[in-house]
């Protein structure tokens, strides 16, 4: 059911690669309606974080989905470490995404019928990884949601759901987390709190956050910022 890659495929790549990276070159995407988008080249080393700024309609979400392998560009290339996305089959891309990329959304998403801990385990299992409860316990403790592990996520408060979303994004020890407008519905306090959380060393190896937002409050926290321009009609 999981792609055809051997389980140690990516770790091998990581070992063999001097500097692992997520890079995008000359990306172009075209919506079914014909509206085209071109994106600036992008380079994100392991452990680096970056901000993608742009107004709504500038294609932030589209860019994130291209980087996550959810969408396919009409031209250009995306490399995750040593792997060229366009050389992969759809199910291989699903597999890579599950293992290497975590995602955080503005509006929290979870599997309705599962508890917090079951949701986290689901992330591991769906990616074809061995469930690792002790790591998840540490993660939940670090994010102060351990006491909620048996709750259904929809019963959690906004702040708790936010932390739960971060925990799920980190569940598979991904190299990259793609966050889409994670703070736009938060007040200043919670926004600061979010930034504190993602800078916390929650995982043994450093994680790169690529945050797409129009929230100006975040700019001061990132040294690398990409600006997306609205497409000219």
């Amino acid at each position, binding site marked *: 059911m999981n792609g055809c890659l051997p389980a140690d495929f990516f770790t091998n790549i990581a070992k063999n690669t001097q500097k692992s990276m997520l890079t995008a070159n000359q990306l172009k995407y075209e919506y079914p309606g014909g509206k085209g988008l071109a994106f600036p080249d992008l380079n994100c080393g392991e452990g680096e974080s970056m901000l993608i700024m742009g107004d709504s309609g500038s294609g932030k979400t589209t860019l994130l989905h291209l980087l*996550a392998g959810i969408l396919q560009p009409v031209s250009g290339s995306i490399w995750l470490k040593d792997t060229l996305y366009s050389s992969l089959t759809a199910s291989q891309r699903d597999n890579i995404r599950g293992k290497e990329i975590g995602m955080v959304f503005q509006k929290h998403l979870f599997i309705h019928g599962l508890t917090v801990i079951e949701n986290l385990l689901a992330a591991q299992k769906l990616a074809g990884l061995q469930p690792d409860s002790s790591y998840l316990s540490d993660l939940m403790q670090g994010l102060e949601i351990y006491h909620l592990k048996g709750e259904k996520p929809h019963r959690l408060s906004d702040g708790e759901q936010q932390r739960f979303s971060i925990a799920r994004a980190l569940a598979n020890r991904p190299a990259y987390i793609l966050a889409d407008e994670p703070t736009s519905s938060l007040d200043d306090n919670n926004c600061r709190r979010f930034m504190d959380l993602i800078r916390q060393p929650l995982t043994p190896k450093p994680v790169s956050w690529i945050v797409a937002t129009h929230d100006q409050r975040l700019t001061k926290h990132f040294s690398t910022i990409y600006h997306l321009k609205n497409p000219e009609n």
Partner: protein
Amino acid sequence: MYVLTLAYKRLVSRPGSSILSVLLFGIGVSIISLIVLADRQVQQSIERNLAGIDLVVGAKGSPLQLILSSVLHADYPTGNISMQQAQRIAEHPLVKKSVPLALGDSYKGFRIVGAPVDYPRLYEASVEEGEWYEHAMQAVLGYNVARRTGLNVGDTFYGVHGFQDVGHAHDDHIYTVTGILQPGAGVVDNLILTPVESVWKVHEEHDHREHYPEKEVQHSHEKNRGYGGAHENHNRESSTHTHDEHHMHNANTDAHAAYEQAGALPLDESSFEENIEQRISALPGDDPLVKIHEKVRDGKDISREQMEAYQAFMEEGRREVEDDREITALLLVYRSAAANIQIPRMINETTHMQAASPALEMNRLFSLLSFGIEVLRWLAWIIIVISGMNIFVHLWNTLRQGMHEIALLRVLGAGRLKVFFLLTGQGAMLAIAGWLLGILLSRGVWLLLPSLYFMPGMGLIAIQWQEIMLLVYAFFTGLLASVIPAVRAYKTDVHFALKQYAHA
């Protein structure tokens, strides 16, 4: 495999719709399953209970009723027939075996059947404990009767008139249990067997009183005085019999001897002797027969003429006792298939009795029932199709409301196929759960029903091959119902679903 866990969790998280789907499916399955069980039970028990009986001779009325009452012991008898007339049928050369049955009483709802031991032997019944009856007022209990009533060998009981729990109690005629049968003898499991004479004895007091009113007191029949005529057996023409009429029967002596040879009827010796004594004492003291009787009683020699006269006298008594006798039905086993054409026609055209073929009547009954069963079967399939649609609607709605959840699964690394199997898994699970519920329901009804209708328990029945087929159908119905939602999930545009969710 995790997909199945997830499918299960998704269903459980929407208990309302899921329970409704399972329940609807279960009802459809349980109806079909019950039809299968009933069909099996009926076929088996009918086949078992027909026990090779080719024809049943009984009083005129509904032939089906005759078969139901005297073969399956499930309805009221049509009435009584004369033993004498029945015997003439039994003598027919095409008849291999004949078994008279006398019904009418019951004990705690179990029917008391007066019949020779030949009757239970038709069912290959054998005594588990004790022994077969030999004399009147002895009884052998079917296995279920013994189990339910708790009667043991040596215990006594008395019957009540009719087949209900309550009725006129024949408490002056006590039966003694001599044996208990092994289980598995079909309908006999639920019967109390006794010689035909017992049934006669219990019911014949009244006749004696009419026959011999002057002897009534000596014969200590006082107890029964208040109870004449409540019994159909009592309204007989024979109550007007005179000795003259009986003399006329001598013309039939040959026939009589013939059926004596055929080894037919065991006479109740006590009422026979009673009859001889009564008739001797009714004769004037100087009648030669009185002297012969005394000689015979004292073991003295008598001449050939005297012997012939005495035999004729005895024969007359025997007839007299027999002529009164009525039975409920006579079961026949043919010697050859040719009897099929001759005997029923003979009986229906030349006697006041009717002949009914168990096989024919059962076929008739089934053809009457089969329409109803067919309708029920269609109804069940319609329910199953509707429950299939219900599963579809259930899955479709959950999917529509939760495209973002499918998108999330995809984001977390689940491939398209996995998502497809998730949905079909949900459909199949609902259908299989419905099947399971249906099977449990049908078994529950099957166990409960007999106690509601005072039928013998039928016990748990293993899953039938038709029910396994039903599981296969259920599985495919579940898959079919979930294919469209599954394809929809398979084609989920993750990007679009996530965007839509973010802006909803």
